[in-house]
């Protein structure tokens, strides 16, 4: 083989490998672009959701709409009669907040105490069993909770109403909604609280014990206050779930026409049940106004998040 040929072969090989390298590079670049695109799509979704729901929800208040709803009446109304074309959302907002608040009031202490039990008090096996209980409760779909609520919780509520000489509509009532929501948000808050309590540094505990505090005192005073931030994050998530829970609540709320509901044995109506009730057609005011209710729901969740965050900051700076 002459040197000329050898050189020729060498350049050929070099060219080929250069070609292959540039191919790899272009594949690399394309795939990187696709990966980035997927990340951006995922991130853009939230903006698109807010934009599209808001656009359709605002539409019913605009003058160009077929039967426009007055924004003022919508926001201050205390009656919701879709059959008469009356849409007032204020009492629904109040109902939603009341039910979520009381559900939180019931579930929050139970959750925090159970989380403390799981992490600090229970022996290893019991702790594992309780963790499984919480995970199972979190895994049960909401529609199954709905079946349970409209079969079992309503019975209990009806009996309770009997003690006070009230009659309920088959147990469908605000109290049933509150109990149901309390059960549903319990696993959410508990699992967040468990994570928060696990993250408390051991030195805090040891310090407290060394100063002569009892084990229980340490758990309640030192561990819980150190884990405060995470526990409140759990509360936010829990309340968010309470506000947004739809199918299960719809099965026991009963959809009152007027409100707000103050008697726990009366029917109630929350934002989500309003969105789901009587869903037949997919056009017209009755349908489009559900999007307006959706906007209200998103705003309430946002405000709750901000409020609890502010509360948490205040408590933290107070220490």
């Amino acid at each position, binding site marked *: 083989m002459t040197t000329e040929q050898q050189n020729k072969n060498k350049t050929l090989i070099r060219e080929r490998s250069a070609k292959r390298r540039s191919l790899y590079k272009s*594949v690399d670049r394309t795939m990187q672009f696709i*990966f980035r695109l997927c990340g951006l799509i995922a*991130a853009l979704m939230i*903006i698109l959701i807010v934009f599209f729901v808001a656009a359709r929800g605002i539409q019913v208040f605009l003058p160009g709409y077929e039967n426009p709803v007055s924004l003022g009446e919508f926001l201050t109304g205390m009656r919701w009669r879709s059959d008469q074309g009356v849409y007032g959302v204020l009492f629904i907002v109040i109902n939603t907040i009341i039910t979520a608040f009381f559900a939180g009031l019931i579930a929050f202490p139970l959750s925090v105490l159970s989380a*403390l039990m799981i992490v600090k008090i229970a022996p290893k096996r019991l702790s594992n069993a309780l963790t499984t209980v919480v995970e199972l409760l979190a895994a049960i779909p909401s*529609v199954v909770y709905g079946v349970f609520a409209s079969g079992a919780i309503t019975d209990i509520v009806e009996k309770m109403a009997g003690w006070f000489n009230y009659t309920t509509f088959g147990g469908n009532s605000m109290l049933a909604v509150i109990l149901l929501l309390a059960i549903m948000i*319990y696993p959410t808050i508990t699992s967040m609280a468990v994570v928060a309590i696990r993250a408390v540094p051991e030195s805090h505990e040891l310090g407290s014990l060394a100063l002569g505090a009892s084990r229980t005192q340490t758990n309640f005073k030192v561990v819980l206050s150190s884990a405060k931030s995470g526990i409140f994050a759990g509360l936010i998530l829990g309340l968010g779930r309470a506000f947004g829970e739809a199918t299960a609540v719809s099965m026991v709320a009963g959809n009152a026409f007027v409100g707000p509901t103050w008697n726990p044995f009366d029917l109630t109506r929350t934002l989500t049940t309003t969105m*789901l009730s009587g869903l037949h057609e997919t056009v017209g005011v009755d349908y489009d106004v559900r999007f307006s209710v959706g906007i209200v729901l998103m705003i309430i969740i946002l405000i709750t998040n901000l409020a609890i965050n502010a509360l948490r900051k205040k408590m933290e700076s107070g220490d």
Partner: protein
Amino acid sequence: MNRIRIIKDRIAEGLTWLSSGISALVLIAIFVFIFKRGWSTLNWDLLKNNYNSENLMAGYDHIDWDEHGAFAAPDTLPENAFFSEKYGVAFVDSVSAAKESQMEVVFLDPESPLQDGKITTAGPRQGDKLGLEEGLYLKKISYINLEGDKKSAGLTATQGKTSEELVSVLDNDSQEVVDFYAQTEGGGLKGSIITTLLLIGLTLIIALPIGVFAAIYLHELAPKNKLTAWIRSSIELLSGVPSVIFGLMGMTMLFQVTRLMGITGQSTMLGALTLAVILLPVIIRQTEEALINVPDGYRMASLSMGATQFQTIYKIIIPNAMPGILSATLLSISRIIGESAALIFTMGTAIMDNPAWNTRGTSLAVHIWTVMSGEQPNFELASAISIVILIIVLILNVSVKYLTYRMTRDKDDQKKKNTKVKVKATTET
């Protein structure tokens, strides 16, 4: 420690026991309730039957009734069955899953004239053979009575509403049977089960690539800057959005996408697209968790051998993160099976027997919603479907737990090995 302190501590500790006890009790109560209510309704027929029963009508104009003599009841007949000696047929009264009383044909003699019916109603199938069969539910039967008048008996007629009455009317009052009206067994879940499977398939095809790729971008490629932080917090926000809102979003935004595919209304495809958005945060979080567990050494080794970044991701990182991606898939399936609110908006609540990707349909969860939100809530059926859903969801969650356990165990093992090697190295020097 004084006594008051001890008592206070005991009370506080007792409260933690109490609250955990309550949660366990609630879980048990839910399971007991659902199983007690639904277990008797749940059987294979329920799972494989159509929801809408098929109507069958046929006449017996062509039959020579004098040819047939009396029939003898077989020994295998159930105790509550009533046998017509004249026609060789036996009925049993029962209650359907939809709580309606029904009359099942449990036995038909092979010689019975009733199996030689022909379709008499006008239409393309007129004249085809269609007879009474075992397993059908009789609604009405018309006959010529002893006086020669045409009469009818059965559930939808004025007489013969129970098997006993019907058999006595047929045996004692009739000369010949004119026609019958029967139905196949309905109230089944076949359509909803197919829709659910279809929904799982479509959703995963859409959501898994986007979710896994997004996780890879965030963990492997993304620079640590404001944009990445923004992407992360947006995805975090997405997981806090209630599913009703996703349903609304599906109806405005993704509806436009399915319209491009030529679908005009609610459809399984629309439900799948909506679910894909709901699942993105779940898949991204689980996959990232798995990517974190892939040791950095693998990446460096691959890159230092001259592999490109994509080759490293495709050949090294994804195979090693597979258990995490699998557990993301299982979690997603369990979410899809349980989801209802978003699907009520995007797929409708009409139960279909022959669902397709571009028609409406109900998943099992929405099937529960449909039977519960009617005038007469049907607890038994709802609980039976709930049992099916609960069992699937529990199996999926246990598998996820096992996968995560294995993933973390592998990592722990590696750590132990590494420390052992180090210890060895130090002792040798």
